[in-house]
């Protein structure tokens, strides 16, 4: 079986999720009954909220994960001014060597 293209992989996961979700919504009473502490009405309400709007929560979670990954990455992103300084020094040395070899004599 040929490998799916990236957008097809995403669609496959999305449809899989939606299929499971619609089943969960259909059977939400059974599911909520089986969840811990669902005899308490506030918990039951929260469980129902979670199941009914699962796709929204999933997208929200994805967004939060993405944003934190990027922020984390930026925080860890090293600035290395010493590399610029080292390069400046080496540029000077290189220019001296090139001058010694006669680059300056090259007409414009």
């Amino acid at each position, binding site marked *: 079986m040929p*490998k799916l*293209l*990236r*957008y097809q*992989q995403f669609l496959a*996961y999305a449809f899989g999720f939606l299929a499971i979700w619609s089943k969960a919504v259909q059977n939400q009473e059974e599911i909520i009954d089986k969840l811990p502490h669902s005899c308490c009405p506030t918990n039951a309400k929260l469980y129902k909220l979670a199941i009914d709007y699962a796709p929204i929560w999933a997208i929200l979670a994805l967004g939060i994960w*993405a944003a934190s*990954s*990027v922020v984390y*990455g*930026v925080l*860890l*992103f*090293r*600035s*290395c*001014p*010493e*590399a*610029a300084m080292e*390069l400046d020094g*080496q*540029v000077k040395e*290189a*220019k001296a*060597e*090139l001058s010694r*070899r*006669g*680059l300056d004599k*090259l007409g414009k």
Partner: protein
Amino acid sequence: QHNNLTSMTTPAYIYPISIILPTYNERENLPIMIDLLHKTFKTRKVDGTVEIVVVDDSSPDNTLEVAQWLKESYADGLIEVNILSRKGKLGLGTAYIAGLKVAKGEKIIIMDADLSHHPKFIPQFLDTMERNGKDKVDIVCGTRYVNGGGVAGWDLRRKLTSRGANFLASFLLLSSPFGGTKISDLTGSFRLYERSMLEKVLPQVKCKGYAFQMEILVLAAKEGAKFAEVPITFVDRIYGESKLGANEIFMYLKGLLYLFFTT
């Protein structure tokens, strides 16, 4: 019809390494690059002469003249500068392809000629590719994002853009619940390639700009390429002259979507 079994076949690879340097108006930087490369291979011996292919797109500042001077001045067997002069400003992608056609090295290094990439990392690239032995690596990528890497000259906004763009590309193109391909710097352009992999992939590349660098990796990943990374420092000396304008961002997103739907 009798095959002449004694006919001479020219070896395809007469250099261990070819470094492809596309240039456009690099009259100032190119000599320094060549000198730095020369110094690098003075201390890091390789088995043969290192070829440097300068692909110049008719630079108005006459980079070609400087390239020819460098070819003569540095013709000492340690490195060899070969020049490909193209008529007109034809773009980076075709410069790589044209450079690859004339390059006669077994391994190919691609890097920028404006001193943002430092030749001092090349020995680490080579060691990384060689040390894996049986577990051969096809592409060694320089990465700015891993511990030991970094950038000089970028403010917070630029870092945010860079990280954001890489994350988006990585998520859309390489991620997987089962692990996916771990490449931290998708838009980087300092890499060491096993020649055969580059020859296979480069002709298929269609994107331009930053997405071009991504497409090479994504296509290679599809061909089953093995990757390794080396932390590098990137010195941005021309920040301020927009290397990242709205046009570049638009082209990048366009390329990203194209790859999302076609790979």
